[in-house]
């Protein structure tokens, strides 16, 4: 009897999935005994995912602690944040740790992303790891964006307004009835005609319930496939050796976490996150007052923000969305690229992010100064 063609196809899909999710290898003892970390000049990059995970854990713990006191209403949100900062024992420390760790989490994700790209860690069969990783990046950015609004101060509300307004701007480039869709989308997100109580409630729900669900699920998949496939080779030349993940690498991982925690703790103890901004931005939001000067998004949005300020809107939108697509489909787009090429691209991307984040303000003033 000859096999039906349909069966062949199903069989093929099954093997493809099997290759990527080899669940039959799921045996904790086995994984622990066999997982190895290659030693080579890029070995340091194997710590970055762990760092991200560590900061995420810090976020979960400190976030839960803040949740005990935070009140998500327009009239009380800012007061409750002040209460946490000034009255609750160690409240300022917890809140500072939450803000610092959020930034550090995003920083380590970005470096993690760039290094895994440079090491071609997304090669078959690790596509799923990469795609879930990109999704986790987006979720983390959304965490940052929604969490930023919660203290309900001048900078938070105004920056959120501007951020949401960008969605509406897309409407200018759409034809006919489509032009109103971005505005509808924005109003669905903010829950009313302008940023207000509904927005706060929605952002709160998204920040503390929706996103955590999503991130726990995706993180589970991400970590599972990492365990199943083991560490990627990372470099072209043969590794100098292998190191057992358990107990050697994990111990090093933990000691790195210890140092990270100490650094975070000291930062949080000594440096309020707000100390980098002019003070009035942290007054409670005044719906009837004018927008204070110096409104800027968080540093991790600078790579989008300054281009938006300097270049035509459509160009930046095209660039950002194009980059997103390329990022998401990197395992297939760069299937045939050598690690050398990928390293070059990664350095370019890192350079761009670094320059825009650190010197964005200077570039902005330089260009504006010459132009106007």
């Amino acid at each position: 009897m000859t096999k039906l063609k349909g069966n062949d196809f199903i069989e093929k899909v099954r093997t493809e999935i099997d290759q990527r999710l080899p669940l039959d290898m799921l045996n904790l003892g086995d994984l622990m005994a066999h997982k190895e970390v290659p030693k080579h000049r890029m070995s340091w990059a194997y710590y970055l995912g762990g760092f991200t995970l560590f900061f995420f854990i810090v976020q979960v713990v400190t976030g839960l602690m803040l949740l005990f006191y935070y009140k998500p209403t327009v009239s009380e949100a800012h007061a409750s944040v002040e209460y946490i900062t000034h009255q609750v024992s160690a409240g300022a420390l917890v809140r500072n740790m939450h803000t610092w760790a959020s930034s550090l989490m995003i920083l380590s994700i970005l470096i993690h992303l760039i290094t895994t790209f440079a090491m071609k860690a997304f090669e078959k069969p690790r596509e799923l790891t990469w795609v879930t990783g990109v999704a986790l990046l987006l979720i983390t950015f959304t965490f940052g964006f929604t969490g930023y609004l919660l203290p309900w101060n001048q900078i938070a509300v105004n920056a959120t307004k501007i951020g949401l307004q960008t969605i509406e701007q897309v409407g200018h480039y759409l034809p006919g009835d489509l032009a109103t869709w971005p505005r509808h989308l924005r109003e669905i997100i903010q829950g009313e005609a302008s940023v207000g109580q509904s927005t706060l409630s929605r952002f709160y729900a998204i920040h503390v319930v929706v996103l955590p669900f999503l991130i726990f699920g995706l993180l589970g998949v991400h970590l599972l496939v990492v365990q199943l496939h083991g560490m990627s080779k990372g470099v072209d030349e043969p590794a100098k050796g292998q190191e057992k993940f358990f107990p050697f690498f994990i111990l090093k991982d933990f000691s790195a976490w210890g140092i990270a925690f100490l650094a975070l703790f000291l930062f949080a103890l000594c440096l309020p996150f707000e100390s980098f901004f002019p003070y009035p931005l942290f007054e409670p939001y005044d719906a009837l007052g004018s927008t204070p000067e110096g409104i800027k998004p968080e540093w991790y949005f600078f790579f989008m923000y300054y281009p938006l300020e300097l270049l035509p809107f459509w160009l930046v939108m095209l660039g950002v969305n194009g980059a997103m697509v390329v990022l998401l489909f990197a395992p297939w787009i760069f299937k045939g690229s050598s690690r050398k090429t990928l390293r070059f691209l990664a350095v370019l991307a890192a350079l761009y992010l670094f320059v825009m984040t650190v010197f964005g303000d200077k570039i902005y003033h330089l260009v504006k100064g010459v132009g106007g």
Partner: protein
Amino acid sequence: MLEAFLFVGLPYTAVIICVAGSIYRFKTQPYSYSALSSQFLEGKKLMWGSVPWHLGITVVFLGHLAAFLAPDTWRLFLSSTHVLYTMEAIGLAAAILCALGLLVLILRRLTTANLQPVTTLMDLVVLFLLLIQVILGIMTAMSVRWGSLWSTETTTPYLWSLLTFRPDASFIAGMPLLVKAHLTGAWILLLSIPFSRLVHMFSLPLEYLFRPPQKVVWNAHPHHGSLKAAEDKEVTRRLFLKGAFGLTAGGVLLGIGVLDELYRFFRGPRLTQAEEADLLDVTQKRLKKNAEEKALELERLRDESIFVAKLSDLSPTKGKYFIDYQMRPALAFLGADGLPQLLSAKCTHLGCTVGSEVNAQGRLLCPCHVSFFDVTNGVPDAGSPAKDPLPKLGWVLVNEKGEIVLSRGPKGEVEGTLLGHEKETLSVHIAKRYVEALT
């Protein structure tokens, strides 16, 4: 009478007997001047009994000694509650360690067959006495708290009075029974030293602390290697124990600190009435502000027209902020024609609020992304990020009787006539009928 004996007679007797007896024992039975090791008869339990006991009692003893030798410095040191809590906690932990060690030692003496022949009655008596003394100390620490502080004012002067031969038991006359029992126990223990193994404390081998570790190897093979191996094993073990001890101690300290902070975090602040009042004051102000905003919204939903300003209060160079029907900021100016000029203050670029000052070129500035708008018609300058003009708002002029005298829609359509003498009394309103036209 009894008290005089217990706290004056007994101490002197105890000290005399202790000193004289110890010297006598040293002279007559010098080889009995030790704790008569039983390690080779039973070693495991000894380790779990003797080590905690000696560790604990050393700490406890040093604490007692500090309060006795330098009460003033000690008190100063403890004046910070954090230090006081820490010291008390360390003392209590050490005392519990002592008690546990003693329990192990007692059980060992009572149940190990190997030890029965070498266990004297005095050994058991001393062990029980010590246990009672430690338990009394723990109870004192728990029920008559902060002994490290109050002892500097009571037992310390009492002990010094004994030492300076001016015995004065009145320092401790009012103390709880527990403390008196603890003191009496101390004298009895002192008394028992020359008759028991306790005498070994006078031959404290301090240099042991600094010498390299030694191990007695029974039946050692004459070959040098096995000795070396045994030594190495001992060193590794020592290192491991030290490391484990350090980690455990650090972990416990960290754990206590974290738990303490967590406890206080979740317990929440206990505010004084003044702090509570300040907090309520702030909250109330915010709530009021919120209520005012809601009132504005309600007003806009219901009223046909809303007061903006007196016409005479408007200026051509400094705008007056008000809230339009859509709850967005807007600005009111006096136009060149002497009539109001109302512009939305929501920047058409990204929605920031436009500034109210008119500059020398007759422009309004949006501070967010530096857009300039012409105050006369709301049109942005060519290079500005904003491309659309600020929408003009319609207005009505209302006289004192509430009648509409003159109105102008957002597109500039004028209705009514204005008599010159009325100007002073007119007020500017925005009207609901222009809202539909605006959006």
